[in-house]
């Protein structure tokens, strides 16, 4: 119980939920419009790498972040073009992006920075301390020194929910993911809406990658996302393709991770504890939370009738 009362456990839960929630949110946007997106891992890596590179060369972490988002959008746009215009298999495409991104970032890291890795004086995004919250005993300790991107993520979760479920554009995006033929019939541009969904997904995934590289750290390492893009995929499904669901699932995975760290050294094998988040993933995918129904047209390319 003393473990649960430690503010560090909850601080770590929040910190580790961010790089899951952002790509999970991104995946939600993409799949809501009907494009299966398993490329979050790759786009995160691309975002993480370009964030560090441009933060270092421009001297501004914010500019690095901006470029990371642009690169995320570009990779997602290429993915979207192949998935939507060329009607290629979306799962295969997603894997291609992931493998490509792993190779590209490793190659660029060695070429640009050499084998010693990114320079230690790379700037980092600020962490924030909210003045009045800091003085509340427990909450203050949890929220102190968290990256600014944590708060950005919280705002984005709410915004995404509002956008997808309470705006006209959100309704249209969901419509092309459920029944593109009907949406096309009433005059919606299915392809354009799908492009929008995938590109928003790419930007959010890149933001998740940038959180890892310049949000809580200021360096990049080969494969530093460590499979978080795939856990995010599970969080998206677990969260039933809704922003709040994805956020909640990410919190749970973040908690499992934090708990695995906190429990080490208390007599349980660390190897066993490290399985915790992954065991949870399997449970989640096995339908622990009941039936998880994807958008009806998820993964099916659409040929418009002209």
């Amino acid at each position, binding site marked *: 119980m003393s473990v649960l009362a*430690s*503010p*560090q*456990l909850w601080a*770590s839960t929040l910190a*580790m939920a961010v*790089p899951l929630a952002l790509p999970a949110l991104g995946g939600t946007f993409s799949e809501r419009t009907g494009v*299966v997106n*398993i490329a979050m*891992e790759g786009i995160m890596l691309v975002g993480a790498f370009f964030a560090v590179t441009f933060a270092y060369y421009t001297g501004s972490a914010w500019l690095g972040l901006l470029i990371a988002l642009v690169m995320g959008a570009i990779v997602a746009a290429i993915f979207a073009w192949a998935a939507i215009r060329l009607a290629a298999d979306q*799962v295969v495409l*997603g*894997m291609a992006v*992931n*493998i490509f991104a792993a*190779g590209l970032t*490793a*190659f660029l*890291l*060695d*070429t640009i920075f050499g*084998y*010693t*890795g990114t320079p*230690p004086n790379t700037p980092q995004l600020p*962490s924030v301390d909210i003045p009045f919250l800091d003085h509340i005993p427990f909450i203050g300790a949890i929220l102190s*020194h968290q990256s600014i991107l944590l708060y950005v993520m919280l705002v984005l979760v709410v915004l995404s929910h509002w956008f997808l479920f309470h705006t006209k554009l959100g309704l249209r995006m969901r419509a092309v993911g459920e029944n593109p033929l009907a949406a096309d019939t009433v005059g919606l541009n299915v392809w354009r809406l799908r492009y929008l969904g995938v590109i928003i997904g790419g930007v959010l995934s890149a933001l998740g990658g940038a959180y*890892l590289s310049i949000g*809580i*750290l*200021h*360096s990049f*390492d*080969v*494969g*530093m996302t*460590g*499979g978080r*893009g*795939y856990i995010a*995929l*599970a969080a998206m*499904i677990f969260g039933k393709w809704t922003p709040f669901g994805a956020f909640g699932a990410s919190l749970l995975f973040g908690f499992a*991770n*934090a708990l695995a*760290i906190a429990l*080490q*050294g208390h007599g349980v094998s*660390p*190897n066993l504890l*490290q399985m915790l988040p992954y065991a949870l*993933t399997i449970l989640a*995918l096995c*339908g622990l939370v009941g039936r*998880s*129904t*994807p958008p*009806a047209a*998820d*993964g099916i390319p659409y040929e418009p009738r002209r």
Partner: protein
Amino acid sequence: MKWKVWSTAAAAVLGMSALAAGCGAGTGAGAANNTTAAGGGHPDFKVALVTDTGGLNDHGFNYLSSVGLDRAKKDFGITTAVTESHAQSDYVPNLTRFAQQGYNLVIAVGFLMDSAVKQVAKQYPNTKFLIIDDDIEGQPNVTSALFKTEQCGYLVGALAGLMEQQKGIQGLNDKNVLGVVGGMQIPPVDSYIAGFVQGVKKTDPNATVEIKYAGSFNDQAQGQQVAQQEIADGADIIFQVAGGTGLGVINACKNAGVYAIGVDADQNYVAPQTVITSALKGVDTATYDVIKQALNNQFKSGAQYFDLANNGVGIAPTNSVVPKSIVDQVNQLADQIKSGQIQVSATLSK
């Protein structure tokens, strides 16, 4: 619709396995880049380096081994080649290729290449092999470089213990807790940690040493979280034995205003105020020495131990935070280890 959930889930699992396979995917397509030093030397003496799946940017032994190779190339004018292995199944073909091409010495980095070296060395008895971190005996053309990292772990542990005892060092609390973040629970990591624990026990018997593992060698974010947990538990000096993951540990220490101890190489450059010293593993020295032996026809098969006495392991220069008196005491302990007065065990007692 249910099949879609399952196909996505299957894709996720597929993705994870691809990730596991690809996590060592370093650069290029395994192309060897042959280079010869300009003028003089021994351009006919050819040395090849084959990394394990960690690749050259592992912040660890692969990288250090290539540093030693580069230095040998500069000093002796030999011809060198480097190939990164992307999967365990690459080991045998990579080693075989260089043996076939008539390389004099082929360096295999890491205990993971044990069976590959045994197999290829038998087929090519005229090629000499060096394997790092693994013990191969009874094969006349194979030499093994083994490091007594428990000795340098002991020294940084003793130093950390003395720091805890010292009053008035900025950033240190009075909880007397030390942290260790390991990459994975495997022998090359645990030998460092075993030494560290014994060193702490020597100089600060009442200290608590909190040992946690990040479960990865390239997940900096995870390393940072593990370190933050230890800092929250009161740790004010953290020894990282976690490769790339350790950079996140150092970052967490820097942010929290506590101290870190680096591993393998002198990592003071990462955060000069934070990294008070590093436990050094001289993979570069070992590589250089064996190349020199082979070049001078002094190649000896079997295990070669690199320890404090022959500068195979060591402790990096301390930063300004560490008082001179502590450095002197640690140097005395180093002498006692060299003379055999202190024996350090490589296994971590539970």
